[in-house]
């Protein structure tokens, strides 16, 4: 045994060492499988089982409302039906709220991530490392504290409380076409006031908790790629925008997509921060908040139905992430590994 294995040249990319005692190996594999089954597989399977425990019709009823195939026969039935309808309307509005919040938060996060990555990777300036650390800061803040700080800043007794409670903003769902009769052609029919305990606060809190996602996934890649390609494009007379759009962006597209889907998942899933700033109003519920309410009302199946939608989103996120990892690994191989092959034209 001594000496002989040294002759085997194993590199970092060599297949894993599967030697060692087979009993140990099987034990470890079994332990891992059991661990991941109990902690990941079972919980996820449970979500869908509970959601579908009363059948598919009950599942869809949770957000589409009860089907009115026959009119209610008596007052009790009528009351029950209207309660169910009201419940499903709240659930549907929570879904709409989550989609709306994500639709605002994710583009903001992409814009910020790209801006920050450009500033931090293409230039050297004093305080650069501090800036990178500050961008990451929200990840180490408890979600509840994230909500708390916005209440302290913008709540009625907050630092900017007086300003914030009188802040008037247009309701984006009330957008209306006014025509060219004078003034703006597009306007809003409804206006909201205040920030805390309104959807605006949900957006703010979500922006905070998702803050680092895109920047963090893009910065390491842009750092590794350096600035040569950008400088080359500029030397060929390209504008800054053209350089970014046609040279930088294609190089980081997978990392950008990766950060974007993680940000989306978090924007949909954030609970603690949003719960603090939403003010417990049904109209402000997002999907996770709706889950809590349904659960508190002992409507287990409905809670799990909403949860199953989020779990589905998580699964899509995971599939996309795996695909991106795979594509990124492939294009990394393409960009670097092929250097050795001197390919004369056939």
């Amino acid at each position: 045994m001594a000496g002989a294995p040294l002759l085997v040249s194993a590199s970092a990319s060599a297949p894993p060492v599967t030697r060692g005692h087979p009993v140990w190996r099987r034990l470890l594999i079994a332990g891992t499988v059991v661990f991941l089954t109990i902690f990941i597989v079972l919980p996820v399977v449970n979500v869908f089982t509970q959601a579908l425990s009363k059948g598919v019709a009950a599942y869809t009823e949770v957000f589409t409302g009860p089907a009115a195939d026959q009119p209610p026969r008596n007052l009790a039935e009528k009351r029950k039906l209207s309660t169910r309808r009201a419940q499903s309307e709240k659930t549907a509005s929570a879904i709409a709220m989550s989609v709306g919040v994500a639709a605002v938060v994710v583009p903001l996060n992409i814009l910020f991530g790209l801006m920050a990555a450009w500033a931090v990777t293409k230039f050297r300036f004093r305080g650069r490392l501090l800036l990178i650390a500050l961008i990451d800061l929200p990840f180490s803040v408890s979600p509840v504290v994230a909500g708390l700080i916005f209440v302290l800043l913008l709540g009625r007794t907050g630092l900017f409380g007086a300003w914030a409670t009188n802040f008037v903003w247009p309701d984006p769902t009330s957008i209306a076409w006014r025509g060219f009769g004078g003034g703006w052609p597009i306007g809003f029919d409804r206006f909201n006031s205040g920030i805390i305990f309104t959807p605006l606060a949900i957006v703010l809190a979500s922006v905070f908790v998702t803050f680092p996602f895109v920047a963090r996934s893009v910065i390491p890649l842009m750092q590794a790629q350096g600035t040569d390609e950008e400088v080359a494009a500029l030397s060929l007379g390209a504008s800054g925008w053209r350089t970014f759009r046609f040279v930088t962006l294609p190089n980081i597209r997978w990392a950008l997509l990766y950060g974007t889907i993680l940000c989306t998942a978090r924007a949909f899933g954030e609970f603690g921060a949003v719960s603090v700033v939403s003010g417990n109003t049904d109209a402000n519920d997002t999907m996770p908040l709706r889950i809590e309410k349904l659960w508190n009302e002992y409507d287990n199946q409905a809670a799990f139905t909403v949860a199953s939608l989020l779990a589905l989103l998580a699964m899509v996120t995971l599939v996309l992430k795996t695909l991106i990892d795979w594509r990124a690994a492939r294009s990394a191989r393409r960009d670097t590994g092929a250097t050795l092959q001197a390919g004369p034209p056939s």
Partner: protein
Amino acid sequence: MSIEVRGISKSFGPTRVLKEIDLRIETGELVALLGPSGSGKTTLLRIIAGMEHADPGGGSVLFDGQDITAQGIGDRRIGFVFQHYALFKNMSVFENIAFGLRSKPWRSRPDAAQIKSKVDALLDLIQLGSLAQRYPSQLSGGQRQRVALARALAVEPRVLLLDEPFGALDATVRRELRRWLRRLHETIHVTTIFVTHDQEEALEVSDRVAVMRAGQIEQFGSPQEVYENPASPFVFQFLGHYNVFSARGQVADAPLSAGGGEGALTLVRPHDVVVSRNGNDRDAIPARVLHVGLVGPLVRVELERLDRKESIDAELTSEASKELALKPGDSVFVTSRHEHSFEDYSI
């Protein structure tokens, strides 16, 4: 397009990389910036390109007598070839070359057909017409280098700047590409500067060589001038093998820096060393043959001087060697055919 650099200095933090550089390059010249790593040659090239800015305070870069120091890189109309090519990974060879043309402001932008014919012409020039649709990762190093050149030439630059153009290639491709560059320059005749640390490359390809050391230009002249009349021991040393003959005609192989002492320093190229069987010359140094080796048409003889046990390298023609019939252990005398003496020999 002539290029003039006037009083350019550059520091990175406390390190001064360039010290008051003055350089004038005539229209159509092919000039090499030659020097060891850290001599500031790449920084100088990048300053001419506009990728680096010189320290504020008087220095300027002029193209055809026009001060362009304040111009950005995109406005200088230069073609730059990076050491590692910096080809756009996500674009095909064709798109890489067309990028500069497509980036022009719309008033001066050629239409699709013009771009196509122009890129095709460039592809012919670099002999890669059949690889237009390939991606950079599917090309060999030499092919990438040529694509990088074509991409730079597409925008009809006023000057062509190349940073260690052959640095990342293996020896054969390197030699081939260097001739190709020379021929290319003869056909397109655009003022060209390239940076290299390889003296052979600089001497073979360029019209004039600027030898740089520690942020200064030691000598600027034609390859012949620089090789035959080096301005300093550094230039002499950098351009090839050498033996150190001191002022008293003594030989030492000690590194120049250890040469110390007063008086002139005398350096001799191995091919200027004369070996004879009899010591008629008063200055001849007695030596012993250690090793005789054949290198192509030349015979390389390793000698050890008898008085100081130090070695001398000599290169003899095969005829001379046959005449002498040297073998290890023989006692001989050494003189020089041609030597270079320097008053100041700080290296």
